[in-house]
């Protein structure tokens, strides 16, 4: 027993590193008050070390801590994405003007960020409903506080409040669903639950099980911000400081999709390739594929249509990220190896293009206080590199070649077409056209509208240019060469038996 625990610890090093980093940040904050940003650098180091340990987990296939969590390529893929996103967000935070106003508390900020990353890493590895819930809450609690971190700003406080209320209700619903499920099957491991469910459900209990699954859908749907559980997202994204919005829109979404996919695919489906309803028939009753398909379609429609009317950049990106959650969900709906691999590929590209968009928005906000679309007038002439970069990120989000965003959409749409979800793809296609309007509107304002009289060119330090390029190059390169990443995604979904 002790031996297995020891072995498990060896496979839990990324998470342990984060715990250590968290502790060191607290200590550093107490001892070295003069170096305010020390926390950021410690976190960054922790992330790099954790990244190194994660890298070694590719190709592994282990179950650790008595089947509480799994260490496999799938998990490693998601953990790498989370760590990458967290790394970028830490760098953003070091440069954020919003956080500078709270310099004396910035140690707390990095501590919370480390906690959030820890929670997200746990989310994507857990194979036991108890640990899943725990990880879910660790992430959520840190993000509630982070959202309200700029506490002198009423918007930030309001956002935090809304987030807590929405979040606690939906996680209460989810834990209720989980407890019903555990009570019914008598197991907490997701493989055992699946085995119990596959064994057949008595008809008088069918309603109960359906209800339980539905409740879990609510909880997880909240985390990925998919319609109709998206109402918190715009306010929270708008109210939170830029780096927090970025980690919520990217990191949190990646982790939630990692968890959602592993949990649903293992617990409620049987691996039948070709997709369609057959795989979802473990829990009879509700047509789960149709339900999720409808949620995806709604997210694409509502997200994109509402984004059209936004004038605040953060809000617009919030709605756009709801729409992207819809596209991503398509990968789960089709339930083929292809679909899931496409979803993972999409997430990877999404990380770069969305963080890129947020980063440029943050830089503009730092330099000019720009938050609304009107403030972007003439920025194309005042900050050429940043504006060109933002254009490329937005074009990638639209899904135009030659960017990674195009390839990602291509694979997702392709997976859906080959699984026969033609109506869903048509909706995705139409909403993609709609999305062009609001993405390109930013470009139009930046370039076609004249800057105010006497507006000076904006200056940005060299390090921000480096970060920008680090985000820009993968966005473009993945549009032209992507086979290794696709191979990796396909290898990762092998754990589901596809």
């Amino acid at each position, binding site marked *: 027993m002790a031996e297995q625990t020891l072995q498990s610890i060896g496979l839990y090093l990324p998470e342990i590193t984060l715990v250590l980093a968290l502790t060191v940040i607290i200590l550093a904050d107490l001892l070295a008050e003069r170096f305010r940003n020390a926390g950021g650098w410690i976190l960054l180091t922790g992330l790099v070390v954790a990244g190194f340990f994660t890298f070694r987990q590719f190709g592994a296939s282990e179950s650790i801590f008595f089947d509480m969590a799994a260490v496999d390529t799938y998990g490693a893929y998601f953990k790498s994405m989370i760590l990458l996103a967290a790394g970028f967000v830490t760098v953003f935070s070091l440069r954020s003007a919003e956080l500078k106003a709270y310099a004396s508390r910035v140690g707390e900020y990095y501590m919370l960020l480390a906690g959030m990353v820890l929670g997200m890493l746990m989310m994507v590895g857990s194979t036991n409903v108890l640990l899943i819930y725990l990880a879910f809450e660790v992430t959520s609690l840190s993000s509630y506080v982070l959202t309200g971190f700029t506490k002198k700003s009423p918007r930030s406080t309001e956002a935090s409040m809304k987030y807590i209320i929405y979040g606690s209700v939906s996680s209460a619903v989810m834990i209720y669903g989980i407890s019903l499920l555990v009570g019914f099957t008598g197991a907490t491991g997701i493989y055992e639950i699946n085995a119990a469910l596959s064994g057949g459900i008595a008809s008088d209990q069918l309603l109960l099980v359906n209800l339980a699954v539905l409740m879990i859908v609510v909880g997880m749907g909240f985390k990925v911000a998919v319609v109709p559980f998206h109402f918190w997202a715009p306010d929270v994204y708008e109210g939170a400081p830029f780096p927090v919005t970025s980690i919520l829109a990217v990191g949190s979404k990646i982790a939630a999709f990692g968890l959602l996919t592993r949990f649903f695919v293992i617990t409620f489906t049987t691996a039948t390739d070709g997709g369609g309803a057959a795989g979802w028939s473990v829990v009879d009753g509700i047509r789960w594929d149709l339900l999720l398909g409808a949620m995806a379609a709604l997210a694409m429609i509502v997200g994109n249509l509402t984004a059209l009317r936004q004038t605040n950049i953060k809000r617009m990106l919030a709605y756009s990220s709801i729409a992207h959650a819809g596209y991503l969900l398509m990968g789960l709906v089709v339930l083929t190896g*292809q679909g899931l691999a496409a979803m993972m590929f999409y997430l990877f590209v999404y990380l770069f293009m969305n963080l890129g968009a947020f980063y440029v928005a943050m830089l503009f906000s730092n330099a000019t206080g720009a938050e609304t679309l009107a403030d972007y007038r003439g920025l194309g002439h005042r900050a050429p590199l940043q504006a060109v970069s933002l254009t490329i990120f937005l074009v990638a989000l639209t899904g135009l070649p030659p960017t990674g965003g195009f390839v990602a959409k291509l694979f997702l*749409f*392709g997976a859906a077409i080959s699984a026969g979800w033609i109506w869903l*793809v048509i909706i995705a296609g139409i909403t993609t*056209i709609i999305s062009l309007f609001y993405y390109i509107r930013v470009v*139009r304002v930046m*370039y076609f509208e004249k800057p105010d009289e006497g507006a000076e060119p904006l200056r940005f330090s060299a390090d921000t240019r480096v970060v920008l390029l680090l985000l820009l190059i993968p966005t473009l390169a993945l549009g032209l060469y992507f086979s290794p990443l696709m191979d990796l995604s396909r290898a990762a979904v092998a754990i589901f038996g596809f």
Partner: protein
Amino acid sequence: MELHIFGIGILTWMVFLPVLGMLIILMLPGTQHTAIRATAAAVTGIQVVLAGVIFANFDRAMIGINDAASFQFVEKVRWITVEAVPWVGRIEIEYFLGIDGLSVIMILLTALIALIGVISSWSITKMVKGYFMLYLLLVAGMMGVFVSLDFFLFFIFWEFMLLPMYFLIGLWGGPRREYAAIKFFIYTFVGGILMLLTMLALYFSVAYTDAATGETVHTFNLLHMMNPANFVEGGLLAGLDTSWRYAAWMALFINFAIKIPLFPFHTWLPDAHVEAPTPISVILAGVLLKLGTYGLLRINFPIFPDATEYFVIFMAILGMISIIYGALNAMAQTDFKKLIAYSSISHMGIVVLGIASLNTQGMVGGVLQMFNHGIITAVLFLSVGVLYDRTHTRGLYDFGGIANQMPRYTGIAMVGMFAALGLPGLNGFVSELFSFLGAFAAFKWITMISVTGIIFTAGYILWTIQRVYLGTTPDKHKNLQDLTPREYLMFVPLIVLIVLMGVYPAPAIELMNTSLSYLAEFMTGVQP
């Protein structure tokens, strides 16, 4: 036939030279206007030389179309391969370039028009650096579409043109440029999504077996998609004459019809033309519109011969409507540029009518008309540009008696006008004649109605000549300067071609005859 320069194939040079030029311009300081312009001119000049080399070395007897072995200047590199996975087999995307009789003439046209466009862009003074960078990217995109034989590559180049065009119209255009730019963008993007979905459906319906390893390979290779034997059992687009195949054909057709532009998808064109700066109008009408008809011939026809056969009357009718509707609209315009925009719709209608005939005559006529219209319309837009530069107006009623003021210019413009009208001895006549002859063999009534469009064309052209070049000169337009040497430089090659191709069109016809005869045979040979 293969040709390498420094170990890199000539077609790659054709496509990526402009990108290289763009990078050089990127390095130059923005104030060095002359150096920037010279770089653009040099790059497009080299492209013309390379196009000449291709013209000289092109084997007129080789077919192409759906036979990989008889394409020329082929470059084929494995670009993206996702190794065999249990649920799909191997996935393959290739960097596959090659030309046949259909594309070679389009490449010549693109290279020539691109160079003329650069010469005409000399007068652009606003943000010169950005302008030429975008211009060269646009040229690279157009060239890429014409040489791609892989659908994925084709699509990338196709969409790649959108953004440069959007900025070129939106930043350097006329007063309503933003509206025109976004309208162009959205129309084309809608088409692009339709093409994307069809491309994916085709991709999953087509697979071939690798002879070496026995693996099933999914590919975007256009030539594989043309072979009915490659359609997988139960694939969405497998079989012949299924409703999915009709739907897919229609989706592609709408995409290409938007680009052509065919009635009723044409409404973006007048706006885009009127607002775009002169060189961009030249590129737009000279090359971009041809991408639509080229796409029909390269993709719709050989991949969906059954659906094409089914929709051929529909195509011909849309062609007919475009011919007459375009001409009538042109007659009603008071803006010189808008008039030419509508005349483009009318003339591109002839192309569609010609190729819809599915016989050699009509197809050769159609493709020749694509080339000729590219040349003629370039002359027309350039001549409007010359007038606009001097008078800052395009209103047809603002002019008069220009012939007295600028006799040499008027002579050149008249040649272009008469070529557009279809005067025998000039190139427009030859291709229109072939198109209508071919079409007449296929659909009598539609062609007979279409030919009346010629009368309207004569009407608006003669009327325009009368209003602009003849009559008395208004006082404000006295003392206009005749053509400058730079303007001669852009007009003369085009005028020479107009006359040459009118008197002796054989070299052009020889280029494409073999390929198009085969395509016509292929189209009518496949019966369900």
